[in-house]
């Protein structure tokens, strides 16, 4: 929790007051000072200053001055808050009258980024969320977004082999989750189970997962939750700095190099950043064999610029993501007989060998994002911002089998190619109503064109979305209650054109409301309760409406249903949070979510016969569903710097109409770790640690019988990690060594669609080095 403050520039002057008056216990002490803007040095009026322990508080006057009287001697935490600034927290041992000047950093809310609003407020916001930053993010992000987020409780992944990994939040994934990369809603081809999110986790400094349907601020569709990737805020001091990452992996013999360079001018409030990542890895290895053609090659690049004259911010951001993913050759099958043969074998035909070659089947995915944002501070509390973005996504899939008799010039053509272009605009007004209500009112519009250049699985389409939202939050320091509500209206127009040689030429309209309500009640200093309820909806996607064709990876024939209605989710969650300074923290969330008209694939009783043989056929269907579960996370200090870290998630998905389980729901996961910290005094911000953890996953017993193979057995996997910060002269070096699957256990994950064909990768030793640098 405290990490956040470390990133702030909180300057403090503690000037001892007049000679000691009385050391007696009489409560006559006073604390006074001035609140200043760290950037401009100007006084900040109307900031709230609170002594956390006693709840004594005042507001700074128009010149930023404040004074708190009648304080008993003791140790206190002084909290200063101001809309548009991060809260500043300072510990203080008060024995005599003191002067404390507080310099506050304007935070992301004001001027950085629209979406950050939500997550910066997160600490005080009502929704259940968890975040990944610092060492924990560094350790996982080389493995992609999905794998990094697995470190959070309640988040799992839906995999297609080891290289394609999609985040699953409380049992929901793909288009039921929204991903925001630097404020832009990711619009790629998220509908496919084997379509991984097209983002480079190295662009983010923090990744926040907001769980549950109350996504009013971000858009309809997010029945499962939201993932926010936030870059480091722009550089605030003149000079040049950055960071370099080098990572190496033993399994797949992979390497990653990522670098970021940023600078800010001294005379102009202008800053800029460039960032890039290169990644290359070869065939992965399970404990007993190699997985042929499971290499990956990725090259990503981004830049951003920010101009910040007084009261204004102009920001630009561009990123380009390009990945080439090899797909296990043995997973590419012709028909049901082939699939049954492969399942019977349970492993690839050959033991395979190591190679960096990327052969067919292969995916090539390119994603470009460009955004411009303009923000203006109307007053100390109100901001207006406008963001315009463009995204372009090209997905090319190469089947194992080239077509027969290819013309020489079409020899390397993909078998499937989709291109989608998205333009979006958002206008937002952050405001304060009265003293304690803060909120946002805004509107957004999006226009999208998708062309299918090869393959006829889905039709060409274009759609237009428009939304209007309003959220308000009441938050008052000192009050145990906090409230939040939000309301949203969305409409979507979908036009469907050609699919293969058919011209469907159909228009569909969907529109509806979303709403959310949240309450937080602090029982005392230690315990806090959060209750959230919300309702969101999602219009059926083009693949759910019009899919028609065979998926080779799963050897299934999928048929869309143009009559599908929108899904409507009702989400309820209750979280109990507790934290006792350095002793322990915990959070226990229970949720109960109903999704009406939940869209799923219903197996047909008869296989679809084609000239390639029989394929199991699935129809998109809808029924009322229920997903409920418990997420748990805790950290307990056992002895000095020895911590017990504990995480668990339990979930149950039920189709209420068929009275059967929902497919692909994560089984019970339970993770326990021991972490021993050292070197904490020398490197307080980046303390070193050693950790050993055990992941225990049960067999999924709650699975429908319609699966091709029963869910795999449960397993226990051991992981170990060492992180150490060293100084090389004045240069800080952060070194991490981790071993996943320490015992080289052979296991399979239920949520990996390739569990039919192979085991999960074996032991992996990884080394990583992070070098932050700074020239001023």
């Amino acid at each position, binding site marked *: 929790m405290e990490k956040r403050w470390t990133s702030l520039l909180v300057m403090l002057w503690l000037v001892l007051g007049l000679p000691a008056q009385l050391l007696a216990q009489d409560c006559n002490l006073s604390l006074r000072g001035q609140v200043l803007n760290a950037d401009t040095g100007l006084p900040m009026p109307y900031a709230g200053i609170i002594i956390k322990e006693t709840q004594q508080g005042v507001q700074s006057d128009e010149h930023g001055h404040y004074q708190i009287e009648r304080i008993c001697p003791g140790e206190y935490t002084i909290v200063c808050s101001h809309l548009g600034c991060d809260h500043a927290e300072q510990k203080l041992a008060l024995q005599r009258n003191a002067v404390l000047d507080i310099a506050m950093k304007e935070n992301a809310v004001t001027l950085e980024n629209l979406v950050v609003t939500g997550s910066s407020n997160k600490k005080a916001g009502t929704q259940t969320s968890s975040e990944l930053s610092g060492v924990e993010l560094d350790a996982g992000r080389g493995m992609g977004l999905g794998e990094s987020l697995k470190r959070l409780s309640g988040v799992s992944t839906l995999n297609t082999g080891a290289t394609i990994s999609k985040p699953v939040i409380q049992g929901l994934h793909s288009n039921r989750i929204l991903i925001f990369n630097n404020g832009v809603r990711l619009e790629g081809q998220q509908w496919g189970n084997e379509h991984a999110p097209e983002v480079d986790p190295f662009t983010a400094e923090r990744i926040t997962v907001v769980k549950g349907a109350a996504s009013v601020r971000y858009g309809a569709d997010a029945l499962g939750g939201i993932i926010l990737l936030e870059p480091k805020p722009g550089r605030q001091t003149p000079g040049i700095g950055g960071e370099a990452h080098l990572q190496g992996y033993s399994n797949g013999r992979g390497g990653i190099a990522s670098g970021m360079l940023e*600078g800010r*001018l*001294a*005379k*102009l409030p202008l800053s*800029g950043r*460039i960032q890039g990542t290169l990644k290359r890895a070869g065939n992965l290895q399970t404990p007993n064999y190699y997985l042929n053609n499971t290499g990956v090659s990725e090259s990503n690049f981004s*830049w951003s*610029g920010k101009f910040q004259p007084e009261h204004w911010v102009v920001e*630009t951001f*561009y990123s*380009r993501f390009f990945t080439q993913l090899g797909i296990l050759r043995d997973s*590419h*099958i*012709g*028909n049901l*007989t*082939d699939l049954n*043969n492969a399942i*019977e074998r349970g492993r690839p*035909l*050959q033991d395979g060998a190591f190679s960096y070659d990327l052969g067919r089947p292969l995916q090539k995915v390119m994603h*470009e994002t*460009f955004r411009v944002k303009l923000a203006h501070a109307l007053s100390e509390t109100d901001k207006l911002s406008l963001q315009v973005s463009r995204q*372009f996504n*090209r997905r090319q899939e190469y089947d*194992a*089998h080239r*077509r*027969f*008799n290819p013309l020489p010039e079409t020899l390397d*053509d993909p*078998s499937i190619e989709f*291109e989608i*272009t998205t333009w979006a605009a958002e206008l937002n007004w952050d405001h304060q109503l009265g003293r304690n209500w803060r909120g946002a009112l805004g509107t957004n519009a999006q226009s999208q064109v998708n*062309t*299918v*250049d*090869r*393959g*006829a699985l889905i039709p*060409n389409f274009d759609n237009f979305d428009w939304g209007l939202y309003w959220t308000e939050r009441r938050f008052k320091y000192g009050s145990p209650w906090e409230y939040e509500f939000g309301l949203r209206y969305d409409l979507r127009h979908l036009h469907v054109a*050609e699919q*293969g*040689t058919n011209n469907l030429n159909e228009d569909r309209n969907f529109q509806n409301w979303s709403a959310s309500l949240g309450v937080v009640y602090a029982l005392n200093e230690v315990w806090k309760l959060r209750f959230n309820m919300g309702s969101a909806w999602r219009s059926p996607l083009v693949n759910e409406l019009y899919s*028609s*064709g*065979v998926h080779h990876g799963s050897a299934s*024939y999928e*048929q869309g249903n143009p009559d599908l209605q929108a899904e409507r989710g009702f989400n309820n969650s209750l979280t109990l949070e507790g934290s006792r300074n350095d002793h322990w923290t915990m959070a226990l969330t229970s949720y109960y979510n109903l999704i009406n008209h939940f869209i799923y694939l219903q197996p047909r009783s008869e296989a*679809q*016969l*084609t*000239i*390639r*043989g*029989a*394929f199991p056929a699935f129809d998109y269907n809808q029924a009322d569903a229920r997903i409920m579960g418990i997420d748990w996370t805790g950290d307990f200090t056992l002895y000095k710097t020895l911590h017990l870290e504990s995480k668990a998630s339990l979930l149950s998905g039920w189709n209420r109409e068929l009275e059967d389980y929902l497919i692909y729901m994560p089984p019970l996961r339970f993770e326990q770790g021991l972490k021993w910290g050292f070197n904490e005094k020398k490197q307080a911000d980046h303390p070193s640690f050693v950790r050993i953890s055990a992941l225990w996953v049960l067999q999924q017993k709650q699975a429908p019988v319609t699966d091709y193979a029963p869910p795999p057995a449960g397993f226990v996997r051991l992981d170990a990690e060492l992180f150490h910060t060293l100084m090389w002269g004045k240069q800080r070096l952060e070194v991490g060594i981790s071993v996943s699957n320490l015992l080289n256990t052979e296991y399979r994950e239920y949520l990996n669609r390739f569990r039919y064909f192979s085991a999960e990768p074996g032991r992996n030793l990884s080394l990583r080095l992070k070098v932050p640098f700074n020239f001023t």
Partner: protein
Amino acid sequence: MKINALKLPLLAILVLPFLGCEKDDDNGPDNEQELITTIALKFTGGGQTVTFTAVDKDGDGGSAPVIQNINLKANTDYTLSISFLDESKTPSEDITTEVKAESNDHLVCYAATGAMVSPIASDKDAGGKTLGLESAFKTGAAGAGTLKITLKHEADKSSANACGTGETDAEATFNVTVQ
């Protein structure tokens, strides 16, 4: 001076996305996914040649393939010659030449039931292993049965159960009447 030094690269990167936008290869939609639409079986024996087909012109969805019933004479020596066609194009394309050209990567498998006798492949691929486009068999007594023809791609021909490996390119089960 510092400003000037930074201005150029800044300008350069600001302009970059407008240069690096989509390069759409406007070949138009290319939806010819179907590789094989037709399996044709040519039986020669008893002094005559008969051909039976399995045809699925509209691809994976839509209508099911139309598979003709095979009629053969009892107690007769036959040779079977199989060809694969793509009849979605005009003129139709003979995929068999491709199969022959990449003979090492292909294997035709037979599975017979009832009164049908499983044909025995008589041709070899470029590596001297079974290919299966050409085969021979002798029918037995009259009766009914089936014959399943499967064209495998990248099957492991050295495997004991070669037909249980690889990826199916085409498959059809014909009803057979021996009389």
